[in-house]
């Protein structure tokens, strides 16, 4: 819908893509960059829980994502809305499943926004957490390290206070990402069935089906 929303979504994907690097060098962003090329692919399921005052109960969405080095991402929601975002080589497409059962390209400003944040994405893909122009990164080391992304831009900070990328105690695996939008509004994305470096059909980054 907008570059901010898409940017956050992609940030989540990239954070997951950086997980193996983080586990081995949780206190060194430079090491992250050096190890960036080691990861060839990632696949995972996710459950997204949205909390805000207006919702009587948290809104739960489910989906799946795929990443293939160096710059291919498939970010797919299966419920309650079916959407697929495809990123490959600087090209960004988004599709929505219409009521008639057909996939339609999202032609709103969201797609243009995604192109704008591709510059950020490329940096994150290369492990450059600490060089992003939209977010500054800090690292909380430990058995379960956390990367905290804070918006650099004041306008963005009005809407996103911070993003936390939480790693599990299993080396190299992200447990959850939480986006804080204000006092009572947050989006928690929890990952499961994470698989690394398995063969991925590249066509999944080019077409919805």
């Amino acid at each position, binding site marked *: *819908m*907008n570059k*901010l*929303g*898409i940017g*956050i*979504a992609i940030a*989540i994907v990239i954070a997951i893509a950086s997980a193996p690097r983080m586990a081995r060098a949780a206190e060194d962003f430079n090491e992250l960059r050096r190890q960036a090329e080691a990861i060839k692919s990632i696949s995972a399921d996710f459950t*997204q829980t*949205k909390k*805000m005052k*207006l*919702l*009587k*109960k948290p*809104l739960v*969405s489910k989906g799946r994502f795929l990443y293939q080095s160096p710059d291919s991402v498939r970010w797919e*929601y299966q419920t*309650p*809305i079916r*959407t697929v975002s495809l990123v490959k080589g600087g090209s960004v497409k988004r599709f*929505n499943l*219409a*009521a008639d059962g057909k996939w*339609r*390209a*999202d*032609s*709103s*400003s*969201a797609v243009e926004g995604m192109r704008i944040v591709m510059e950020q994405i490329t940096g994150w893909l290369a492990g450059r957490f600490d060089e992003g122009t939209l977010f500054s990164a800090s690292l909380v080391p430990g058995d379960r390290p956390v990367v905290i992304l804070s918006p650099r831009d004041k306008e963005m900070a009005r*809407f996103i206070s911070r993003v936390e990328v939480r790693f599990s105690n299993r080396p190299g695996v992200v447990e959850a990402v939480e*986006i804080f*939008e204000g006092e009572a*509004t947050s*989006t928690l*994305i929890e990952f499961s069935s994470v698989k690394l470096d398995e063969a991925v059909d590249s066509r999944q980054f080019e077409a919805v089906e």
Partner: protein
Amino acid sequence: MRAALATPGCLVVLALACACSAPPKITPVTPADADPLIRTCLAHYPPGSFALVHAIEATLPLGNASSVIGVSSWDEETHTLSAALLAPEGIALFEAARLGGTDLLVTRALAPLDRPGFAAGLFEDLDFMYFPPGQRANGASVKGGEPVPGRYADGRSVCRWTVDGRYFDLVPAADGGFSLSEYFEGGEPLRRYEAGPPASDGFPMHARFVRTGATGYSMSFRLVEQ
């Protein structure tokens, strides 16, 4: 002059002008049918507080399309109507509330939803879909607040409100759904809401909204939670 009027273009213009000179004609129903029809029409509006989550497929001007999650809530006690639009990724794109039918407070509006008139237009659309035309959101009635029961020429039952120079026609459907059309005084259509059969708790599982005109748009709704 006669030659000019006879050109096909002028005939089309005249035909359109005639077609839009007034909303569809209705004829009165018998007194015995009137009250039940009015009750049927009013039964399509929420009786009190509600909170809904919809998957929305929007078609915007110039053919652009997008999907969002819509949250709408009405608190009968405080007369507060609230609305939010969320990206599928969970980010709140827009959030606002209107207290007492007048004071609209926008707490979040990311571009392009921060453009002038968007918030007011969204709440107008919510009013259209969820509140009887003659009833303000603060509970007060306005002139024209009483629906007039009738029938179209094709026999369909209709309740018509006439408020502030506009006509609102609610037509119950045989499947339990209904349609609501808003016309300008001259008969040009402005908005239309088509609601399918209600779910167990009374709200339609599927609905479609269309706003006509150069900046028109349409939205398909699928009820996710209530």
